[in-house]
Structures are given as C-alpha cells and as structure tokens.
C-alpha cells in the first residue's frame, strides 16, 4: 500500500497495535469538542459518556488479545437522521425532539462492529432539506474555516465535525448533494455512493429514490475505508442492490495514467463563480499532467437536473413525511380528534422549508398536475441517465465543480428559497442518475475559503472514482494557495 493512510486509519493502526489507547484518542477528541463546539455547533448531541464506555470496551479487547476491528478507537460523528437505538434522533426537527429510536440503522451496526466510537449526533438542515444547515430547528452549524459562514448542507454538522477535528470520520446522507456540497465548503472529502450500495435501513427517509448514506473524512483513503465498512447488501432494505460491492482501498494508488477524464461543459457555465471554475480547470490540468486523457464533454440534460429534482424530491418527501402525525412517535399537540391533532402537530413541529417542500410535493402529485410535473420530471430523469451513459462510453470519470461558490455568509441566502436551491446544480444530476460522485478539496477560492472539485463515475464505479480522487488529492495545491 503506497497511498498514505489518513488520520482515521493511522489511529486504528495505533490502537490495534496497543501503541495508543482508544480512551486516550476519545479524550483528545472530546477536548477538541470542548474547545470549539460552542462556536461551531456541529452536534445536536455529544455522546461523551457513551464514547468513553465504548473506548474502554475496545481497550479491554486489545488487552485480552482480541481483534477490536479495523476502525478500532476511531471517533465518528453521525448525522442526526441516522437512527441510534435509545439515543435521541431528531433530524434537527421539533417534531422528533427527544425521540429515541427502538433500533439502530444498519450502517450504525456495521460501524460499531469495526470498533469505531460514535462520538455525537451531528446537526443538519431539518429532515435533510437544505444546503446550509440554517434550516435546523436547533440553530445553524458554523464553518470551521470561517465561523461567520455556513458549512453547507444538509450534512453541515458532519462536515464541520470532521473539518474541525472533532472526529476523523463522519456519516452523512446525500439526496441532492448534501454530503458533497458541505464537504466542498468545509474542505474535506465527501462521497455519495452508487444508489443501493449502502443500506438506507434506519436513515429517516427524505426522497427514497435519491437518498444515500456516505462518508466524510479528511483523506480519500479514510473515506474509502469507511465506504467499505458501510457498503453491502442488506435484506432490511429492499432497494439495496444484491451484487457484491467491489473493494476500493486496494486500488487507490493506481494513479490516472491513461484514465479518460471528461470535464462537464454545462456545469462550468451554470452560475459558477469564476474562482471555483478556475480551480476546477486547474484540477483538470493537473490530472492531464499526471497522465490522464482530459477533454471536455457535453451532458446536455444536466441543465434540467435542478428543475426535475425540485419536483421529484419534494414529491417523494411529501409522502415520506406523512408518517409524522403525532400518533406513534415524536411530538403530539393534542386536540379532540385525531385529524385536528395531526394538523396541530405538523404545523407546530415542521419548519418553514419542510412545509414548503411538502406543499410543493403534494401539489406536483395532485390530480390534474401529476403528469405535467412529477410525470414529466421522471422522464427528464431518464434523459439525464441516458446522457450520462453516453458520456461514459467515452470517459471513465467526469469532472465538475462541486458547489458553484465557496461558503457564503450565514443569512446571505435565506430570504429566497430558489437562490438556496441553486447551490445543488452540480450535485443533483448524480442523485437522479443513481451514480456515485465524490468531492475532493482542491485549494482555496479568492477569499481563502475551501474549494471542492467533484469527480463522477458510472454506477458501481467506486474503484475508479476513488483511484481518481486519490490522485487528485495528491495533486491538490497546499492551502497556502501555491499554484501548480
């Protein structure tokens, strides 16, 4: 293995070899949280006692000569829409404030089996709806690179936790870019896996045909390791693909010699800030110098991704969020009848953005509008799938910016929902197509804030995707902005 292990893998190796205790690792991270969490607000809940107990259990195994697992002792932050049994899971919504799930998400089970330590539930835009984490009912998370700015969203807490050093790893979810965009804005690695490779059992559903859980890390190697832990068929998720997931860590350092890289022409135009576009072009040039065959490619339907998404995702969400009715779990605002109780509960429990999307979705699915809106959007989705498939006949991976801009100021885009939605223009097409995509930090913008570049691959193309990402990471300018 010549690709250097990232911070997470380094910790795991040291803990497994008995060179460090898991307890010491956890205390170090809790101290970091103690120092900066009041400013950053990455977490809805810090699990200090649970983390210490889990760390002690890992250390006991090591002392007894038992293998504690491949990620032993590594603290992980979990987006607070991932069910953790007996531990509050709020989706950053008042409607689930204090609710404790009676089961763990499959990814949480798999993570715990590796000896990883769950250190906290990370803040998010309410029900994963947003691109800035400003829609959280519990206050925004701030970008560790500049606390006057957003960390991105909806997995802003997870991205910030990793960027701030609160945990080397985090899990988030990505429906329209909610892992990749905050990864770009915070300067960390974030992957949206191929749809169906990671079980959604225990992920509170937003849009069922688009949602995927994925890793955040400070290095591509760490993200690859976490992906391998969480990926794989799950009988509890009927959308989980039955095929075996190809391994990714062993091919990380293959380099990009001869790799065909297509820079998506349309995604360098759609309102992308000049410094972000420039960084993306530098990334393309760096890959070319490293031996890749780089060229421009057209994916015409990508332009329609945003519009199709803002019909499909809210439609699916309106159905998924119907379950929050005050009857079985969460908030109940009691009224004489069940129906009045449902209305009062949902009105009090949901924030404005959630209400907006529920109404948009209900409208798009309603009688008389279904064909024109939702039905049409699903057919545009097919065009996007086909355009990508055509591009992948000529290219192995595609390249684009992850986010149109660097991190914007808190409050700057909240007055107009549409302005906020435009943040997802580069990330949405992969969710619609079900293909994997990763954001890799690549220097800074003119304002000194992190820039992320996005690599995309066909379904189950994670090995190639990670290989290209590892190469890009090695080629990235230092944060002092040294030009290549």
């Amino acid at each position, binding site marked *: 293995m010549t690709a250097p292990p990232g911070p997470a893998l380094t910790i795991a190796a040291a803990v497994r070899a008995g060179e460090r205790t898991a307890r010491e690792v956890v205390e170090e991270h809790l101290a970091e949280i103690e120092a900066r969490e009041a400013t950053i607000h990455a977490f809805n809940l810090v699990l200090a006692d649970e983390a210490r107990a889990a760390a002690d259990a890992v250390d006991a195994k090591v002392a007894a000569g038992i293998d504690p697992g491949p990620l032993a002792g590594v603290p992980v932050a979990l987006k607070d829409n991932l069910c953790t049994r007996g531990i509050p899971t709020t989706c950053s919504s008042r409607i689930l404030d204090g*609710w*404790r*799930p*009676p089961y763990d998400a499959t990814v949480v089970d798999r993570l715990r089996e590796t000896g990883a330590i769950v250190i906290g539930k990370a803040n998010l835009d309410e029900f994963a709806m947003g691109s800035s984490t400003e829609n959280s009912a519990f206050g925004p998370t701030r970008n560790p690179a500049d606390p006057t700015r957003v960390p991105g969203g909806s997995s802003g807490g997870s991205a910030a936790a990793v960027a701030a050093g609160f945990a080397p790893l985090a899990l988030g979810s990505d429906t329209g870019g909610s892992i990749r965009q905050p990864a770009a804005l915070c300067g960390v690695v974030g992957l949206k896996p191929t*749809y*169906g490779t990671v079980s959604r059992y225990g992920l509170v559903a937003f849009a069922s*045909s688009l949602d995927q859980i994925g890793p955040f890390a400070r290095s591509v190697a760490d993200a690859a390791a976490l992906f391998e832990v969480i990926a794989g068929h799950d009988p509890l998720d*009927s*959308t989980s*693909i039955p095929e075996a997931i190809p391994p990714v860590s062993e091919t990380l350092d293959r380099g990009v010699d001869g790799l065909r890289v297509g820079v998506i022409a349309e995604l360098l135009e759609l309102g992308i800030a000049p410094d972000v576009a420039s960084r993306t072009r530098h990334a393309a040039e760096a890959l070319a110098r490293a031996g890749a065959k780089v060229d421009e490619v057209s994916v015409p339907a990508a332009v329609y991704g945003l*519009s*199709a998404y*803002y*019909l499909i995702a809210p439609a699916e969400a*309106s159905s998924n969020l*119907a379950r929050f009715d*005050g*009857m*079985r*779990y969460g908030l*109940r605002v*009691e*009224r*004489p*009848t*069940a*129906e*009045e*109780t449902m*209305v*009062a509960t*949902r*009105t009090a429990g*949901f924030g404005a953005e959630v*209400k*907006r999307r*529920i*109404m*948009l979705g209900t*409208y798009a699915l*309603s009688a008389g509008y279904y064909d*024109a*809106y939702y*039905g*049409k*959007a*699903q*057919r*545009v*989705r*097919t065009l996007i*799938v086909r355009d990508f498939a055509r591009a992948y006949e000529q290219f192995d991976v595609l390249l684009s910016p992850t986010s149109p801009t660097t991190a914007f100021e808190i409050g700057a885009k909240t007055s*107009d*929902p*549409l302005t906020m939605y435009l943040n997802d223009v580069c990330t949405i097409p992969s969710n*619609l*197509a*079900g*293909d994997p995509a990763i954001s890799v930090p690549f220097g800074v913008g003119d304002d000194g804030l992190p820039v992320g570049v996005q690599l995309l691959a066909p*379904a189950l193309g994670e090995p190639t995707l990670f290989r290209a990402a590892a190469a890009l990471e090695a080629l990235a300018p230092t944060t002092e902005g040294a030009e290549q």
Partner: protein
Amino acid sequence: MSERITREEVAHVAKLARLELSESELEVFTSQLAKVLDHAADVEALDVGDVPPTAHPYPLRNVFRDDVVGPTLDRDEVLAEAPAADTGMFSVPRILGEEP
C-alpha cells in the same frame, strides 16, 4: 407568472398535507412556490417524446423473502416512546369525527 399557483391552490394543498397556514404564511408560501414552479416550468415545456419515466435508478424487481417469522421491534421499547400508550397499543384521539 403570478398565476403559476394560486392562493386557493396553496390553501387546498396545505389541507391535503395536514398543515395549517396563517394568512401571512399563505401569502409568502404562494409567492415562493410560484417562483419555484416558474423555474420548474422548463421541465414542463420540454418535449420528451416517448421517453419512459425513471422511478428508481436501479432496476430491481420483486425483492422477496421467505414468509418466516423473525425478530422484530420490542413492543415495550416502541410504546415507551409513543405520545400515549395503553394496554400494549398506541392511544390516539378519536378518529371518527365530524367532517371538517
């Protein structure tokens, strides 16, 4: 473009979604939804010919398992988190009421 969605339609949709909006919220949401739908209009206007819809990115069909009883959620644990529970069941307000 202000007729993209009317106040009455928003009020109707809110009712379907079991949401109660104040007058000012109705105003704000109507204009916001109209703007989003305006943007989405480029989808509406596209000629997609006879392209079939994609509901799911991965073509799985008939995902079945054997009809065998297995472990499930712990009832007491589930009911402990319910707003109200009684005799092993969720306790809910009266369902059959007057038509609203």
